[in-house]
């Protein structure tokens, strides 16, 4: 008998529960886990502990695509970098010009709100987070982020990119977080038409280029090309950020509701970096320091996230 088969051999007579018994036990345990996790959500501590354990796997899987980015930056030619730098400077200048106007507008808005005796709108603060290049469940639209509890991320927090709303956080771990995209079939975004303030709900359908607005009557004043912005109702998303643009309006005389579809403005399947929004960090800026306060939320890193109320 070789030494390998000595160490490796199986017992001739098995002791303990039989294979079938163990299978049934484990299956019952799985079903119990599912019940407790799905119905009551009691297992957050188990999930948190395991998620810390799986975070290294996510980071390792993300490494190749992250390192491709670094290498590309490192190896790119000098004149291309210079050109890119120049472009970015010009872009920054343009945006600063827009921001100057924004400061004036904010001041005006604050004055008008003061005249109307309505409460001042709160400014939002943002922080950049990176989407890990990790494919989660293929049948749901979820992403994993590299910011978690230590960065002050909380469940329900809104996620933006440069063009609009991306989704919201559904689960926070000590090191990372998981977010649901607005295109997930189980997600609904409260929106309003930017043109006339008509409020409705945009549902995800499991397609990153399409959303449905099923609750609009045939007589609704809506046209192709209308911009939908977040309404701020439901306390899920801050108000006034672009969500989608209407791509199809079909009025059906025999049906109670029209068929309306829209395309999300955010690049849902292409963004690598997203902005996490802390709503209402401080009150709307006074007219004098408006320019500073307007520029401040865009700084990255320097923002110490506050506890949310």
């Amino acid at each position, binding site marked *: 008998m070789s030494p390998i088969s000595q160490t490796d051999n199986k017992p001739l007579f098995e002791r303990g529960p039989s294979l079938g018994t163990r299978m049934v036990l484990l299956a019952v345990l799985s079903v119990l886990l599912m019940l407790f996790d799905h119905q009551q959500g009691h297992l957050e501590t188990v999930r948190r502990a395991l998620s810390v354990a799986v975070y290294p*796997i996510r980071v390792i899987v993300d490494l190749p695509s992250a390192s491709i980015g670094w290498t590309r930056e490192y190896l790119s030619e000098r004149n291309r970098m210079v050109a890119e730098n120049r472009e970015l400077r010009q872009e920054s200048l343009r945006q600063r010009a827009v921001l100057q106007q924004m400061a004036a507008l904010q001041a005006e808005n604050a004055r008008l709100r003061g005249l109307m005796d309505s409460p001042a709108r709160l400014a939002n603060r943002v922080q950049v987070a990176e989407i890990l290049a990790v*494919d989660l469940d293929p049948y*749901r639209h979820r992403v994993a982020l590299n910011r978690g509890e230590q960065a002050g991320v909380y469940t329900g927090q809104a996620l933006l990119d440069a063009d609009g709303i991306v989704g919201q956080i559904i689960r926070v771990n000590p090191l990372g977080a998981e977010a649901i995209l607005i295109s997930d079939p189980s997600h609904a975004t409260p929106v309003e038409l930017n043109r006339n303030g008509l409020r409705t709900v945009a549902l995800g359908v499991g397609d990153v280029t399409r959303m449905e607005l099923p609750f609009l009557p045939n007589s609704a004043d809506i046209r192709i090309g209308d911009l939908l912005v977040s309404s701020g109702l439901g306390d899920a998303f801050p108000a006034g950020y672009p969500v989608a643009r209407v791509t199809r309006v079909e009025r059906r005389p025999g049906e109670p509701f029209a068929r309306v579809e829209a395309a999300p403005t955010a690049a849902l399947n292409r963004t690598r970096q997203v902005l996490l929004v802390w709503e209402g960090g401080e009150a709307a800026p006074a007219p004098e320091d408006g320019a500073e306060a307007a520029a401040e939320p865009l700084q990255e890193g320097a923002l110490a996230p506050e506890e949310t109320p």
Partner: protein
Amino acid sequence: MSAVATPRTWPVLLTLLAALSLEVTPLPADLAPWRPPWLALTAIYWALAYPRRYGLALAWLAGLVLDVLKGGVLGQHALAMTVATWIALRFHLRLRVFPVWQQTAAVVALIATHQFLVFWVDGVTVGAELGWDRATPTLAAFIAWPILVAVLDRLRMHLGMRA
């Protein structure tokens, strides 16, 4: 749990960890539905080639880790992995001596069971609908199984792990 501490466990653990990474490695959007269920295939391989008492518990635990990794309902993949590995362990003496194509067909049938359980739980919890994209991982397993067997057999022979 003392069986888990035997020296011959680490190749099993490492390959399961590699399979877990492959489960979430980013793929182009067109290819993503064709991702083979690497973790289930690896667990079935070890159940056939190196059956041990801890095999079932390990498969269950790997499934639980996959649930957390993919952000699904806890227990979903754990259940599917347990059932698939149980069938593999139950018939490992027969499946092991099958010719490659016949073994592949049997394993694909196992994967179909596994995928059905995953879909079933999805249907109960989030109301998923049956579509063609539910069948593609099973078809991908057809191609993935012979490759996996070739790679893991070499590893196993190299390490002298006899069944």
